[in-house]
């Protein structure tokens, strides 16, 4: 990895990296010359050719998404930046906004130009107060220097960016839930179709992109799609900011190209598993199916390898667990989170998440039998893929993978099927 040039985190560690001066000194806003020389459709083609995938979790090709925007509706087109980073175990977007807000702004300019949008919103998780302040300051700086506003750098392209502070609901990270929340409504995902690219914020065509997706765009515009596809693997082009948390000696985040083996990542970057041998890895945020240590041996940090292992790349932030971890307690933590965060709109999710949570509480209080464990699996099947958004699947997948792969951790809590004689009676 020695020959690799960081794209997303190259200003991290530089003093005052969030200011326009430092940003310009380190090559900031240099993609704009290339950008405005192209036609919007050419920008979309360039991003399509780069193979850039959405970094928010679903991994949908970004250029493809942009090409869905109808240009003939007569309505304004909006770009909404999803900065509602809330996936448990994920913590990289917040640093992107903290240390390099101008890179995000540059990415927003590129994407807005491509889809012909003149108003962009950044929906930031409410807890990120410092990030919001830095973003607002960066937007002000950029406006003064004519990187935003009317006729940006003489290109004739206008763009305004507004920062919207969320109120901290996990479901507002789902793109239609986010749009509802942005409109001032209760953050509940919308039924699709119509998709947001056609009917989104305020009834207008809207593209929702993740912070890192947009931050990756300026490099592609500046260096070209071919240079981008040369980094990483065939299906997972470019670089990503990978995170590590849990039982490792060194937690943190590192930018690197796709393709590093998971075990190397843990050993070289995380300095090895802390407190025992590796037991399990949640590869990309809490909603991805869990992997056993065995499965991680040939896992690489790419979209395709994750898919082959029947899990998801997700947000690229792995949670590492050592051999002493009690999987039932881990899952209990997760089910409680999802039961609490379900928006309550669709029946299977509203009832299912809470049901799973109640059943798991019954298990860990040693009141359940094997029947309850099987019931949990069946509820997971009944929830998955049957709702408006993927929230119910985001709990169903961990539940199923946890119980199937670590059943013994759950079984030790179960009441044995023999008759238990209460102590009082035996004492007499």
């Amino acid at each position, binding site marked *: 990895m020695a020959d690799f040039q960081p794209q997303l985190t190259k200003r991290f560690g530089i003093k005052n990296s969030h200011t326009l001066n430092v940003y310009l000194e380190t090559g900031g806003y240099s993609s704009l010359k290339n950008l405005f020389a192209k036609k919007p459709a050419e920008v979309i083609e360039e991003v399509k050719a780069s193979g850039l995938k959405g970094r928010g979790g679903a991994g949908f090709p970004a250029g493809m998404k942009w090409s869905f925007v109808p240009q003939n509706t007569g309505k304004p087109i909006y770009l909404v930046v999803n900065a509602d980073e809330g996936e448990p175990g994920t913590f990289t977007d917040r640093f992107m906004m903290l240390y390099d807000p101008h890179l995000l702004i540059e990415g927003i300019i590129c994407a807005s130009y491509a889809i012909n949008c003149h108003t962009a919103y950044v929906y930031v998780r409410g807890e990120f107060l410092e990030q919001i302040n830095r973003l607002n300051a960066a937007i002000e700086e950029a406006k003064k220097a004519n990187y935003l506003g009317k006729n940006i750098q003489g290109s004739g392209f206008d763009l305004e960016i507004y920062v919207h502070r969320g109120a901290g609901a996990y479901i507002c990270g789902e793109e239609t839930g986010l749009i509802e929340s942005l409109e001032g409504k209760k953050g509940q995902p919308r039924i699709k179709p119509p998709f947001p690219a056609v009917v989104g914020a305020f009834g207008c065509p809207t593209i929702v992109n993740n912070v890192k997706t947009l931050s990756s765009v300026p490099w592609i515009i500046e260096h070209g799609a071919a240079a981008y596809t040369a980094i990483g693997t065939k299906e997972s082009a470019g670089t990503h900011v990978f995170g590590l948390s849990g039982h490792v000696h060194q937690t943190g985040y590192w930018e690197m190209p796709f393709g590093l083996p998971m075990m190397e990542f843990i050993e070289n970057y995380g300095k090895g598993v802390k407190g025992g041998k590796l037991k399990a890895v949640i590869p990309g945020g809490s909603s991805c199916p869990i992997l056993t240590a065995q499965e991680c041996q040939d896992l690489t940090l790419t979209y395709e390898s994750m898919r082959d292992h029947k899990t998801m790349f997700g947000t690229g932030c792995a949670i590492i667990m050592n051999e002493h971890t009690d999987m039932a307690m881990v899952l209990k933590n997760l089910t409680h989170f999802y039961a609490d965060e379900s928006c*309550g709109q669709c029946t299977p999710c509203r009832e299912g998440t809470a049901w799973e949570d109640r059943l798991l509480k019954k298990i860990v209080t040693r009141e359940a039998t094997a029947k309850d464990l099987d019931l949990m699996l069946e509820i997971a099947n009944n929830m998955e893929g049957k709702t408006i958004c993927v929230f119910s699947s985001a709990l169903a997948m961990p539940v199923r993978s946890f119980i199937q792969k670590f059943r013994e951790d759950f079984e030790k809590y179960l009441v044995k099927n023999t008759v238990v004689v209460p102590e009082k009676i035996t004492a007499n």
Partner: protein
Amino acid sequence: MAKITIDGKPMEVPDGTNVLEAALSNNVPLEHFCYQRYLPVAGNCRTCMVEIEGPKGPMLTVGCNTKVAEGMVIHTLSPKAKAAQKTALEFLLLDHPLDCPVCDKAGECKLQNQYMEYGLYDFRRGVPRYFKGGKAEDIGEHIMLDQERCVLCSRCIRFVDEVPKTSELGIVNRGHESTITIFPGKRLDNAYSGNVTDICPVGALTLKEFRFKQRVWFLKKTESVCPGCARGCNITVEQNKGHIYRFMPRDNSQLNKTWICDEGRFSFNHWQENRVSEVRLGHATHPLQEGIAELAKLLEGISPDEVAGIASPAAALEDNYLFKKLFEKRFKVKNLAAPFWGKKGEEDKILKLADKTPNTQGLKLLGIDTEGKDLLEQIEKGQFKVVIVMHNNPFGQDEERAKKVYGKVKALVVLSVHKTKMAEQGSMLFPLRPFTEKNGTFVNATSRLQRFRQAVEPENPDVVEASLWVCRLAKALKLEGFEFQDTPSIFNAMAKEVEQLKGLTFNSIPGTGKVLDLPPMAEEPFQGIRCQPNVLGTAKSEKV
């Protein structure tokens, strides 16, 4: 039109129809809670799950939010679709209280019906029930809310948002703690509030006027038309043992959809209370036969010029038709009019109209004067010895004037449903049947001819409908052409004479009514209100 296949059966449905509607209108049962054909799709109950064949194989999706496409192949009975439907129902019933024995919705509850039909029968919650709380909360003049029964389909919310546009209701909290509630400081008392109880698929929203009054399976339902205003909303009259317990809206996609106003809905008691039940001549009660004979004797003694008749926009087409015919044959038709007596009501852009009578357009159809200014002046001058008033009160609220006027008349014959001031003044009083106790037709403000059928039989056989009263009087006066036994035959005779009704018979009038060639007197309902596009006509058996 799009050719589609549902469960192997080929069918054609209009483009833009959703899969659920296509299934229901072709008698393919598909359960649903949140979908209401006249409200925007919410897609949250997840019970109308179907499998649709696509390029990547069959895909599980909701029927309500999927528009049909040419050649679409839909499975509602495949194992996957069936499993999805069943499990959605299991989730819905998970913490739902099983208080069906005391719940007013039992018998017409979607959850109860569909769970009986599709549900899983082995109980397996495995954990104690989660109690939502919120029992019998008084949220409006007519409405009670039981939050613990709610399945959060959001139909009521979408209704108050879309139709009366008053938005009193909303969902608070998240996940399984979500509850429907009313905004602080607000009350659910808009003019259409009763509709939320009809569309509530369970017993979460109930009517105070119906709570604990009657089990729904005892109710006999009769197709009828609300006589509360000139709109003529389609209703069913629901009675048991002759007592009417409620009026319910009846689906008519071309008129009132599935909505009615509260004023109409709660008028059911009005038609059962304070009724004239016996024939009164002077101060003594008599059988009908004697009353008619007495009246005939009186009429035979005076000149035909000295009899005035007041017909009514509140009476059925048949009543007015025969009343007019009586004047044509025996008296002078110029001495007949049907002025409106009461106050004008409130009008809105939804359903309510200012004209509080159901048949003003019908009078126009029959060529009866709806103003009657000259006639009333003549009555006031004392030009008539006998005035026959049928279901009307020509001098309205002006009692002093009425007393003066009627003092000059030798006999004031009143045919009345209710014991009104008018009825008290009559020297001869005959009881009338209201619309719930007779068959008949009205023509509404948008010129739609609509039929209503008899729901209740009055205890006293002397209480007759106005048209048959006219027949009896005609017989006593030895007139020909009045030999009718029932309303349908009167309608059929009338249809032969009235140009716009040519070719119709009483029983061939469509359930949704028939628009006549007559200039309308009001705008179509629901001005500026979104209703589901591409609704496939009115459901036959399906409940709202």
